[in-house]
């Protein structure tokens, strides 16, 4: 397959994402959430949050603009026509609420050939405006060989 591991260790410029109340609601509805903390401002405030709470998997929304440039980096060398999302892991810290500003930094952690597959692993670290790590993601993309 001729993969190059030269891009391993590359860290891309951080991307800052401003979390919007209606974006949380849109995401929560798309995935069928019924939890009032994600949908009902009064319920979220009554529970002590300043605004609507993002579902944990909302991480895909604030990480996406940071992950894109890494996956599309020609130096990484992913062939998109053959790529599938193989695995995903998230580790969560404090909850994200509307009004937060989340800064995400992505690093290429490994590029390996396993049998006829290329396995590309990226790590994202997302911090809120107080510097707390709200989410660490491990993104595994698999590219099938020819």
């Amino acid at each position, binding site marked *: 397959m001729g993969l190059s591991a030269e891009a391993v260790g590359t860290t891309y410029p951080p991307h800052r994402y401003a979390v919007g109340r209606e*974006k949380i609601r*849109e*995401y929560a*509805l*798309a*995935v*069928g*959430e*019924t*939890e009032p*903390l*994600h949908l009902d401002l009064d319920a979220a405030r009554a529970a002590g949050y300043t605004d609507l*709470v*993002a*579902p*944990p*998997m909302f991480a*895909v*929304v604030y990480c*996406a*603009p940071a992950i894109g440039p890494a996956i599309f980096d020609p130096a990484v060398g992913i062939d998109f*026509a053959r790529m*599938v*999302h*193989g*695995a*995903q*892991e*998230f*580790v*969560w810290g404090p*909850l994200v609420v509307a009004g937060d500003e989340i800064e995400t930094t992505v690093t290429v952690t490994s590029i390996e050939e396993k049998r006829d597959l290329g396995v590309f692993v990226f790590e994202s670290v997302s911090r809120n405006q107080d510097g707390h790590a709200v989410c660490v993601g*491990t993104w595994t993309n698999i590219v099938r060989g020819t």
Partner: protein
Amino acid sequence: VTMQLEPGAELPALSVTPDRYLTLRYAGASGDFNPIHVDEEFARAVGLPGRILHGLYGMALVARAVTEAGGGPAALAKLGVQFRGMGLPHQEITVTGSVTEVGEKHATLHLEARQGENAIIRDGVAELRR
């Protein structure tokens, strides 16, 4: 918390049947407009049976099953999954799982999501804060 966090306890199953526009709503919500998820003709042209579900949508259903039963969004400390078979609209997805380990601070659950015989998410492992 609506489930007992003790080894062997089963997660209440979550079943969802995505309608034909789900992938469009999820694309808009997530920002992932890969044409295999939103364009029927493109999907068929690359050999798929039609538009397929986003893998991360399936993972979101697994996360929802865990948070709904396990203490809300603040309880979910970690979730890892493997994406396997393609998920399709119009077919019921069922998320199942059980508690495999309970420690001082965390409970561990093993999970999967299936459409019939097709496991779209396998080897799901969640950690819940106790």
